[in-house]
């Protein structure tokens, strides 16, 4: 195998030999993955691999080409760069497409983000298989209705070395591991309800040794007898693990590309109150020991704590260097790293108990949101709540509305965000949402 560290400098030398002077960004990526699936106490699948690849951006007088290869034989890299140069030359100049201002680059001295477990790739796979067996054993024979149970372990180590021609040379690393249990059971009318539960940690030693499979089984059994509830307007309670999905269209609409292409329902709304005043969200990439923590973004720009929404007001857009120039705005960052929504004081259970007629959504099933208008329609499943009590599992229902309209009707924020996620969004309640069912 080629020497990982040397190939990036080999690529740089090849770029410097080209007949024109170019700006460039080189990123050498090294990833290790372990992926193991246990079914019926047998290792159904085991995948182990380490990969090395090189991403190249070439900038030639406003022409911008992106190139990626994992054929890192020195002669292949040389040929690949020549071809990349020829392609870049053919493009039309666009003066906005340049590297970031070096003043904005990360200059070093940041904290240890404590998000890289160097041992992940070294741990014997048999130890990971044992973790899977122990997890599966927790529900062995626990319920006759179990049809199949799959327990999955996955870990990733990510290391990257950045070399940018206007003065950036830095490395970053991160990793995580995930343990998941997925169970299907005999349901009613020939249905096989399936659900799961998973936990993610940054270090193998942090992984919970119990509770994952029992939670998965409990969630699956609760789904037996799912059917649509009557169409109508209900309080919508979004359970924490899936509440983040409902925020995603807002984050997409903050993207500079969408704004510049006029395909964002948040166009022209900076500084305005666009969602409920209860909403306070920040992106904080600099908290050690959290997922998504990073000292700089893909452009080498130093990260910082950034307010996204304050009391419902839109505080920023995600604007990189080219989009900043196109839009005549100061660049910010490319997107979120570690998002935190300010939590309330009540538990999910208290929110449910406080609801006279509501539907608790535990998962989305298909659907879409129009990026220009914000009109959405999503399939959902979960539970009908009547007088504060869960009375029926539901599925085969849709929610419809407009993103900004529904987010204005946010009425309660619970306190149960999972600290191990990249987006910390607790359970949320919205009033008077349209549900389509039977």
């Amino acid at each position, binding site marked *: *195998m*080629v020497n990982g560290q040397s190939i990036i400098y080999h690529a740089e030398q090849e770029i410097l030999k080209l007949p024109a002077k170019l700006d460039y960004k080189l990123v050498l990526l090294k990833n290790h993955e372990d992926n193991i699936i246990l079914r019926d106490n047998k*290792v*159904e*699948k*085991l*995948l182990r*691999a380490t*990969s090395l*690849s090189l991403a190249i951006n070439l900038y030639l007088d*406003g022409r911008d*080409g*992106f*190139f*990626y*290869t*994992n*054929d*890192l034989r020195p002669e*292949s890299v040389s040929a*690949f760069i020549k071809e990349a140069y*020829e*392609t870049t030359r*053919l*493009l039309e100049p*666009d003066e906005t497409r340049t590297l970031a201002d070096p003043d904005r680059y990360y200059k070093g001295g940041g904290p240890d983000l404590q998000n890289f477990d160097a041992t992940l790739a070294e741990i014997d*796979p048999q130890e990971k*298989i*044992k973790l899977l067996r122990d997890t599966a054993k927790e529900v062995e024979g626990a319920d006759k209705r179990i*049809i199949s149970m*799959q327990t999955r372990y996955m870990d990733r180590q990510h290391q990257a070395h950045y070399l940018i021609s206007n003065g950036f040379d830095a490395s970053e690393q991160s990793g995580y591991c995930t343990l998941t249990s997925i169970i*299907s059971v005999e*349901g009613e009318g020939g*249905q*096989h*309800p*399936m659900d799961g539960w998973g936990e993610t940690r940054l270090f193998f030693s942090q992984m919970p040794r119990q509770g994952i499979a029992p939670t998965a089984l409990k969630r699956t059994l609760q789904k037996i007898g*799912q059917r*649509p509830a009557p*169409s109508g307007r209900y309080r919508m309670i979004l359970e924490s693990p899936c509440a983040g999905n409902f925020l995603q269209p807002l984050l997409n609409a903050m993207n500079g590309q969408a704004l510049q*292409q*006029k*395909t964002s329902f948040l166009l022209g709304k900076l500084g305005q109150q666009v969602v409920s005043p209860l909403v306070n969200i920040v992106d904080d990439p600099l908290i050690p020991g959290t997922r998504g923590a990073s000292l700089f973004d893909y452009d080498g720009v130093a990260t910082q704590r950034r307010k996204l929404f304050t009391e419902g007001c839109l505080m920023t857009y995600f604007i990189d260097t080219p989009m900043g120039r196109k839009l005549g705005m100061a660049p910010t960052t490319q997107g979120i790293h570690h998002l935190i929504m300010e939590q309330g004081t009540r538990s999910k259970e208290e929110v449910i108990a406080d609801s006279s007629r509501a539907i608790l959504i535990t998962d989305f*099933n*298909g*659907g*879409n949101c*129009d990026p*220009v*208008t914000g*009109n959405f*329609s999503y*399939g959902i499943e979960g539970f009908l709540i009547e007088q504060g009590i869960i009375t029926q599992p539901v*599925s*085969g*229902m849709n929610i*419809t509305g407009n993103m900004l309209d529904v987010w204005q009707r946010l009425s309660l924020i619970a306190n149960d965000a999972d600290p191990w996620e990249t987006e910390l969004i607790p359970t949320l309640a919205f009033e008077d949402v*349209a549900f*389509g069912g*039977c």
Partner: protein
Amino acid sequence: MTSKKTLSNSPLKGEETKPQVSPLRGDLVGSVLTAALSGGSDYADVFVEDTRISSMVLQDGKVSQAQQVCLYGAGIRAVKGTETGYAYTMDLSEEALMKAAKSLTPAVSPIPSKGEKKQSPTKTNGGAALSWQFTPSLEGTGEAIQSLPPAQVRQLLLQVEEKARALDASVIKVKAYISQRMQEVQFASSDGTAFHDFRPRTSLSVNIVMERGGQTQMGFASRMLQMGAEFFSETLLNEVVGEAIQQTDFLFSASQIEGGELPVVMAAGSSGILLHEAIGHAFEADFIRTGDSIFTGQLGKQICNPSISIVDDGTLPNDAGMLRFDDEGIPGQRTVLVDKGRLNSFLYDRISARHFGVEPTGNGRRESFRCMPIPRMRSTYMLPGEAKEDDIIRSVKRGIYAQSFTNGQVQIGAGDFTFFMKTGYLIEDGKLTKPLRDLNIIGNGPEALRRISMVGDNLRIDHSASMCGKEGQKVAVSQGLPTVLIDKLIVG
């Protein structure tokens, strides 16, 4: 289908894409497969890939962005029963391949459970004793392995902008994307199978933004086929740009409706997403093997109206789902899933086929050498019936005519599926009336099949750029449907 007529004002000549690597020698294959089998596996294979993707983007009237991607590596698999060990490497040297093959041992020799004896390696007829003939399957691909040079791609993209603005003065933004992909594959397995294939894939996608009276709307259209330079034609450009403009224009007058249960007429073509989500995934035999699918145990049973026959086809020329060989070396074929209402076959890869004692159906596919093959669809469509579309619409008192779609999803166990209708119409008293948009349609697979009461005579295969995701792997598929009436679905 795309016409093969070339652009009259700009004759397009492809440039030959040379076969890039031939790293597999018969003796090396023997050593690698023997090493992969050494942990006690009863089957092993090696999949070598060299894929080149080049794409260009038109935005703001300029073609100022390009991408080129090279994916190069080998995946080695060892199987024992239903247990699979998998490793991949981007280094195709003998040393690296052997190291990857030997690393598979722990997967198929897991820690024995209490009371379980560790099994000794199974004897096989694999290994160096067999010889592997890598016969290139280039028949029919000679023209297709010509790719279009970047300078001509740029010209085509500029024409897209020109055509879009000429069609409608309210166009404010045009974004277009052309991607050309050539995948070279070499495959060998311990049962003596070997093939060497070239798989071209080219696509054109067009996004249009229009502004009228302070309102903005965005529409989209695309095409994707297994072709090279001959993919492009004046007709193709006109079709795709025209469709994108038409959809955007439609959205200005369309609205959402309150949810509820309604009859749904699925228009011919991209409505094939119904089959993909409602039954296709649940017919994938890995879900049958584990018992998760709602169709488990239904083989041979009558599951819907005898007027309905559904196939999954890997033999449609140039179709995105066409496979001369699947990614496990099984020859491309057409599989009848539902024959006159009876469940005839599931979609089998090698592992599930062996589990059920049947022949694999050529549905073992993978996104790249980094992934294990699993059962996947190819081109899934319903055979035409006898009804006329007008009669189908006329039979509906109040319902939905669903015309174009963006995405879908299914829950394998419960059978609940959804697909997202981008454009369509309300049907009132047998006539198309109010234009509709952005509706999620929900049903239950087996139930929706049973509720299909009319099948049209107008089957159309949709060739939009359609990628299907499963277990984190994306593969190209297509789908088709004649106009059908489903008596009741949840629309919202």
